[in-house]
Each structure stands twice: as structure tokens, then as C-alpha cells.
């Protein structure tokens, strides 16, 4: 592991949604700050900055991570996936995103990208969760607007219509 110096800006190169990007970060810079203010994406939302709310959730090498509890330099050399990657290149929403729209699964939208990223990883492992399993999994995220009703319906509806 390389020695990183306090106060120095180190290059951090990662694959973000399939494209290689490079920015600079002090060793203490959070991945959430790096992605938002150094790279310039808009989906990594800082809600609580202590790992409870889940709004900043991204996938790092396929694993669900809180970007607010991860240092940017830890993500050097990794593949990071964010909510910007979910719709097709020509802007068509994914099936899961469409289900959120259909069932009013979001209001202010601040928690939504993080929830979508957790679901992306979770549904790979468990493509047809029961409502109880889904509610258990979603309890790792806080939403203050929706009461979770629409998003639970959206995911169950989406999974129902997925071919396995």
C-alpha cells in the first residue's frame, strides 16, 4: 500500500460507470466529496455523513458502499458504479427506474439514487424478494418523504415482471 502524505493531493484514478476518470484528493477526502466536487457527478447525495441514511450509496467493485464512509484514495483503481449508469445511453429509464416512476416511489429524490444502487446489488443476489425481505433490506436507507410505500410496490412489481 503506498504511503500517502497528509495535506498532499494524490491522483485517484477509477473507472466510473465504465469510463476512466482521474481526480486529485487529499488522503482524508471522502469518496462522496470526491465524486461530487472533484469529478462532478450529481447522484452521490450526502444525507447524514455518518453512514446511517444511505443516500450516498454507490457500488465499488460491485459492492454496496457508503461513499461518505469511504476515502477517495481507497477507491483508487476500483470500478465505481453510480445511479447515472442505470438508464440506457439514450436516456431510457431501466425497468426498475420505470417502476419507481409508475408507483410514485420517490418525492424529493434525494435518497433515491442510493436506494437504486443498493437494490441493483441486492436484486442480483435475490431477484424475487418477498415484501418482508425487501423491507428488511430497504431499512438500510432512510427516506423522509414517501413512507416507503411507493418504492416497495415499485420493486415488487418490477420483480414480478422480470423473467428469471
Amino acid at each position, binding site marked *: 500500500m503506498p504511503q500517502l502524505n497528509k495535506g498532499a493531493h494524490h491522483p485517484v484514478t477509477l473507472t466510473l460507470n465504465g469510463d476512466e476518470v482521474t481526480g486529485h484528493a*487529499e488522503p*482524508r*477526502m471522502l469518496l462522496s466529496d470526491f465524486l*461530487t466536487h472533484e469529478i462532478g*457527478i*450529481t*447522484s*452521490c*447525495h*450526502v*444525507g*447524514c*455523513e*455518518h453512514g*446511517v*441514511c444511505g*443516500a450516498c450509496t454507490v457500488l465499488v467493485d460491485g459492492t454496496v458502499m457508503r461513499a461518505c464512509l469511504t476515502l477517495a484514495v481507497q477507491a483508487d483503481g476500483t470500478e465505481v458504479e*453510480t*445511479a*447515472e449508469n*442505470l*438508464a440506457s445511453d439514450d*436516456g431510457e*429509464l431501466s425497468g426498475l*427506474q420505470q417502476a*419507481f*416512476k*409508475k408507483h*410514485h416511489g*420517490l*418525492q*424529493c*429524490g*434525494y*435518497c*433515491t*439514487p442510493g436506494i*437504486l444502487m443498493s437494490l441493483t446489488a441486492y436484486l442480483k443476489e435475490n431477484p424475487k424478494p418477498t415484501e418482508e425481505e*425487501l*423491507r*428488511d433490506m*430497504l*431499512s*438500510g*436507507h*432512510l*427516506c*423522509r*418523504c*414517501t*413512507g*416507503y*410505500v*411507493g*418504492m*416497495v410496490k415499485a420493486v415488487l412489481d418490477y420483480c414480478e415482471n422480470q423473467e428469471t
Partner: protein
Amino acid sequence: MADAAEAKKYLGQPVERVEDEILLMGKAQYSDHLPTRAGTQHAAILRSPHAHAKIISVDTSRAEKMPGVTAVMTGDDVREMSEAFLIVLRQPINQWALAVEKVRYVGEPVALVVARDRYIAEDALSEIDVVYEPMKPAIDQEEAVSDDAPIVHETVGSNVVSTRNFSYGDPEAAFAEADKVVKLKIRYPRNSQTPLEGFVVTADYHPGEDLYDVASNYQGPFTSHPVMSMALRVKNSQLRMRTPQWSGGGFGVKVQIFPYVVLICIASKKVGKPVKWVEDKLEHLSAAAAAPNRLIKMEAAVKSDGTVTGFRFDQQDDYGAFLRAPMPGPLYRMHGILTGAYDITNLAVTNRVVMTNKCPSAMVRGFGGPQMYYAIERIMHKVAVELEMDPLDVIRKNLVPAGVFPYRAAAGALLDSGDYPAAIEKAVEDGALDELKKRRDERRAAGKKYGIGYAAIVEPAQSNMGYLSNILPRDERQRNPKGGAVANATVNVDPLGTVSVTADSIPQGQGHMTILSQIVADVLGLTPDHIKVNLDFDTAKDAWSIATGNYSSRFSSATAVACQKAAEKVRAKLSRIASQTLNVPPDQLEFVEGKIRDTSNIENAINFYRAAGSAHWTPGNLPDEMEPCVRETGSWSPPELESPNDKDQINTSLTYGFVFDFCGIEIDDDTGEVKIDRYVTLHDSGTLLNPLIADGQVHGAFAWAVGCALYEEFVYGDDGSFLTGTFADYLVPTSWEVPEPEIIHMESPSMVTPLGAKGIGEGNCMSTPVCLANAVADALDVDDLTLPLTPAKISALIHGEEKPPTNDTIAADTSTKGEGNVLQGSGETVVPGEPQDVWDTLLDPEALAAVIPGCHKLDQVGDNSYEADVSLGVGPVRGRFKANVALSDMIEPEKATLSGGLIGPLGASRGSGHVTLSAADGGTKVAYDYAIELSGTVASVGGRLLEGAAKALVNQFFQRLGAQVGGEPVTGDEPWWRGLLRSLGLVK
């Protein structure tokens, strides 16, 4: 416009939201994403660790010298560059953007650092030395009103800053003639819906114009705009407030950005560069906003048949340390509807406004309703219990009857429409109350604690801007009468016929863009996707008035109506243009599918875009005296919103919906957990503009209300330290705790708004907490219930107060006991060496410095007193502290008392302890005990970790002491928390 109404295609339909695509793609730009110009500086705020203290001095010199720091500001700068904020009451309660002379709550801003980046700014906070002289705080609202209570604002001379008495009908007679007087005392807790996105303010001062250009996620009301401009000593037009399209939740809380707007504005002026500040969650939870906790002593005059003939309210609202505009709104916004859903004509009210050393109270969803209805619906339940009646029958017996609308409630609310008895019967039937009652019987027969609760409430919407006038005596308010509630929206059609809409609603996720597009599409015969709604807001360009903003459910009956009016003006103009082309009178035209056509000959038509385009391309051909272009603003203020009358009656809101809830809950006998089994909620919110969005509002209000009922409370220690500074302490319900409520709609169109729509987003904040409490009361047969109904409280009701553990068989060498924010502990250990060696080590500054974990420097500053510079922390919150320690009651080499304190940017502590040394096998037995009070950040975020941390620190101290006395090298590299993690098995 009869034809427009008939052509309604989109309004009333569950149209999917136009907002969603960009949000789902993660592409929406919230306030933190807005571009800032090069050179923008970043601010961090030093906050008070004390609830009440004099500021003796603030030394910023070291912070100012740090590389990257641009400026450090204190209360002196703020007082020089700005005025204290205007408040509603005529009382000398002066609040500036930073504390001046005194701090009055934990979290109060004391100093501001402006630096190249946020990380540096936060570093510099540690280098500011503030000397405080702590004072006794006023925390409990009941104690704060006593004669010997510490005074929050000495200039006022009392913590009770307003008392008003009101009387309607003949309450004296009602109570004198009552068969029974039912009494209740409730304490409603402090809470807030805590939006996930914090406050964001970027300010750029333009010196040539003397203009402050501000971008923030402020949500209005713009009554606060003059408060800010006057504080900044500029004309209204010199404060340009811009709000982006996207905001991560508001719930009323984002009204309270305004002191920070002023702070960041003057910071920008001082440093000559734009300055940006983003609030973090600890700042938000400790210092942003809380709905006021309220003490209500309530009485109901009751006839033996269950008829309630009068209410008496004695309400005391705790507004914390300052009265920020529009406080004390929560006490007065509900005033006109203090009789709730009931036909009660006799009412006596006493309202008191109390100041304490807590975070200033604020607008939070429900805005005074949750507190008031908690009292009303609890007392209705209690009436039923005392008369041995069914609670629902007591509700039924007292409802405002059908067929009397518009109905003037005792205190002045003009109930616009509804049929409350029919609504209840509909809910009972459609919601299958009978089945729920059977279920209760079955569960109770199985030995379970099962209860059913009810709540019937009237949900007000669109506040009368005169509602606060009632806090002033009659003659005073008549000199400057206030009333009304103006809304604005603008519809523009460009040269190619594209329609765009701007409006003053400033949403935070409520789907206003969708509904406005539905409205305009219907009026102009277009499809919603043809209407581009842009709701970012700019006071320098958009139409606005004092009511502008998003609060008190002011959309459906306010901005939506203004938008309808603007669209109708556009339609009228285009009708005249088309009339000239089609050669038919304007009233014979219809707008359908992008065309304007003759109703008697639909082939005789002109494209919408062509008619609109002619106002741009060929203005010379327009009908006589018609102005070119197509841009119309609709402004609307309902005439029903008048100033208070001579009898102190006021129609506090424009529309009044009806909500009736019932629920079944079961209590876990072992854990005390309240499980919501079924929840039914009926809403009559007038005409529904979009049922999908309406249900979403109900779901959201319900979820927060479940939090209020069962989990959420801002907790303070007796010394005023704030104890719920994280989402692991302030518990927010998750998908696991919030069931889906069964929603039943009924639509009684409002007669005071052209669209017939009322508010729907706040009702459950008012009905659900008390409905759940009534169910718990039913399950446990108790009547004194204080929210939140946590497992600990419920267990105490079932099993009595928790007893101290008795089976402590583990031979622990230390024991710690956390009581709120006071840490107490005792223990003993054996260290190598004679008592005298240990004694000498403790008195040798150099040796002691090596022993104290995290100690950088220790100086002797007097006989047996020391000053140390130590790094300490709990969990993720670590910082540098200045410690003062004094030894007293010294008996060499046997015992001593240690006392002292710590102060640093993360908090303060005071404490004392005793150490006793005695010879023992293999060395010296050291017995100790300690009691430490903590405040500030460490107390706010570390509560759960403190006991373990204290134990680990103490252990580490004695290990190192042993090593020092024994002459072994002290291994000081390992931080104490690593030892804690190891002891928990989390690291090796």
C-alpha cells in the same frame, strides 16, 4: 370557462410525475451541485458546547494564521455588519447570525471560518479559543417559568415572553353547567422531519451594486425576506434570493435557513469573494429547527350523554432560545380551529410563549397541529373512558353536523365544505372497523395487549398571513391590520408556441411541476408533456409576495389557483386572436388537441402554436389594443382570509379538509414494542388534483407521524447538552417500522377555491400520533401517555420502572453508569510499584503527561493544578481539548481528589474523581471513582459509545500508569479507541 372545466382531461388523474426521470437518473442538480465561480470560499461554523454561558473572549488569532484560511468572524463582526433579526413580538429578544455576548443553546453559532476548502475551514475551528463562563440553563419548560429560573433573555426579564387570553361563547357557563369536567395534561415532545439534504447557502456580494446574490435551498415564506434584507441593511431589491429547482426535502424546516443567509452574505462582503456553506447532520439536528414542545392543560365540559359543551386550553409553547420569524406561529396557526372537528361553541384559551436554553423552535410539517390535536383527541378518548362510552360514539356525538357549511368555528375558522358524519361512516364501512374490533377481541382472548384508537381532525391549508396578528392586543393590531395570502404564477407562450410555466411554490419533492402542467394542459387543450414547468425561483425576476414559498399546504388552494388564472388569461387572449382569424366569437371557441376550433364547425380551426405565434411574429395584426407576446401572470388571494375581528376570531387558513383515522396496535409484552397491525385513514381533501401525488403526501405524513408517535424526539440533558445528534440517536422510522396505511378518499369540493382542492400533506402529522396513542391507551388502559411511545416507556407502563440489574456475576474491574450525559464510574486496579511511586508519578507533570492518553503537553500552572493539551474523541468525533486539572484533599500517598474540565471545539466537560492508593500484593491497589458531565458534540453524537469509551480510557490510563511506575516504556502509539474496538472484538 365552463368549457375548460368540461375539457378536464388531466386534472384529477393519477398522472405520473414529470419530475421523476431526472431524479431517477441521478442528474438533478441540488443546491450543493450548483456551479460556483472560481475563488469561491467555504465556511464552517464553530458552535457552542454550552446551553447557557457568557462569552468572555474569542481568540481567533491562531485560526487566522492557518494556511488557506481567509477570514474568521465572530459576534463582534456580525454586530458591526448587520442588525438583529426582526421578530413578531415586541420584545427585546435580539438574535444575530452569530452569538453576541452570550450563548443560549448547545449548537448556537459562535464563530465562522472562511477558507479555501471545507476541510481547512473545519480544521481552523479547532484553533479558535473561546473562553466561556457557564451559567445555569433553563431547560425544562415547566421549570423555566418559575420565579427563580435562569433567564434566557435578561432584557425581557422573564422566560414567559407573551401571554394572551381568549374567550369565545360562554365557557364559564358551559363549565358551570357541565355534568362532568374531564381534565388532561399533556407534554408534546420536540421533533422535526429532518430533511435528508441539509441547508446550503452560497452568497456573493456585489460591491458596485451593494447587492447580495444568494443561492440557497430556502423554502419561504417570503415574509422572512424583509427580515433578512433589514438585517443586512439593504433594500429588499438588494437581496436577490435564488432557489434551485431541486431540493432534498423541506417539511417546513428549510424556512430556518434565513439566519445563515445573512451570516454567509456578510462573510462574502467581508472576504470579497463568494462564500458557500453546507450544513452537516449534527448541525442540522442540534441547531436547525424543532417543532416546539408544548405543555397543554386541557379541560372539557361534558354532559352525561357525551356531549362536549366547552373546551379550556392552557397552552405553553417552548420556543427555545430565540423567537425567529414566523414564530410563535405553531401556537397561532391553528387558532381558528381550536375546536377541531367538533361543534363546540364555548372556548377559553390561554397561550403562553416560553423561552428556554434549547434550539430555537421552527416551522415543521403540521405546524402546531400535532400538539393541538394530541390534546383534543386524547381528551375525547378520555371523555369516553370516564363516561364508559365507545370513543367513536363520543366523536360522532360532537362532530360539526352535515349541511351547515360554510360553518364558522368558535375561534373563527370558516369550515368551507365537508360531511364529517358521512365521512366517518364511510371509513367505518370501507375500512372494515367491525373486523378490526373482532380482531381485538380475538387477540385479547389470546392474552395479547391489543388496542384500537381513533382520531378525527380538521386539516387546515393555506395560512392567512394575518394569523399571527392575534398575538397582539386588539388596538395594537388594528393600527396595522394583516390578512390574505397572495399566490403568483406565470404562463408564457413563446414564438413557436411552446408553453412554459413559472410559479412561486418552491417545492421540495411534492410534484408541483406535474400538477401545474396538468392544469395548464387542460386549460389550453394541450398535453402535460407540452408544458415546461420551471420552478427554480429568483426574487429579482419572478412574481412573488409575502406568502410565497412552500409551507402550510399552500399549493393546491394557492399557487395552483394562480396558475389556473394565468392559463385562463392566456386562453382569453388566444381566443381573441383566433376569433379574428376564424371569424367566430371568442366564447364559441374550444381548445382541443393543440388546436383552437369553432365548436359549431370543428373543421374551422387554427393550430395553437400559430395563434400564439402571431402575437410574436405579426403583432401589427393583433386585435385592437392587444399587447404583443403571450405572457400572463395570475395573482390570487382569497377574500375569506381577513384580519382578526373585534371578537378575536380569525379564519386562520383558507381550506379545511377532514381526516378520520382508526388503527389497531398490539404491544409486545416482553419488549414493549408497539406494532401497528392495521391503519385506516380517510381524507376529504376536496377535489383531488392528482390522486397518485395525493396518496404520496398521505404516505409521507403518515411515516413521519409514526416516527413522532414511537421513536423521534430531540433529547436534552438537565444541563442543556443535546443528546440526539445522529440518526443513530434521533431515530427515524425505516421501511421496517412503517406499514402501508389504507387510504380512503372522499371529495367534497371546497367552495372557496376555484379548483375545489384543499391541502392533504399535513393531516396525518396531526391525526396519526394521537390515533396511535389512543390505541395504546386502549390496549393498556392508561391515560397518561407522553410521546414518543418507546419500548422503554411502554415497558415501564406494563412492568413498572426498570430495576437495576442484580445478577452482575461478571467480575468487572470497572463499572460505568451513564445517566443521560453524566458519566459515572468506579473501579480498581493493581499497578506495580509502591504507593509512594505511584503518588510521585501522578504529581510529576512530565510523567503524568506520558500517562494521560492522547496528551500532547502538560504544564503545571499552580500548586497542584495543571493545564494539558489532549486529543480525545468518541467514535468518529475526535478533537483536541484544553484540559484543566486540579488536585485537592491530598493525603500523601493515600488519596486525592481530582477535579477539572475539558474544553474544545467538540464540546466541554466538567467532572471530578477520587483516587485512593493502598499497598497490595505485587504493587499498589488504585481505587477510583469519577463523575463527568459532558456537553457539545461529544455528548450529541457519542452517547451510545460513551460508557465503553470511558471504560477504555480509564483502563488505558492505569495500564500506562503501571508501565510508567514500573519503569517500562509507555507505548503511546495506540489510540485508546483502538483498544475499545479490540475489546469489542472488532479489530485484532
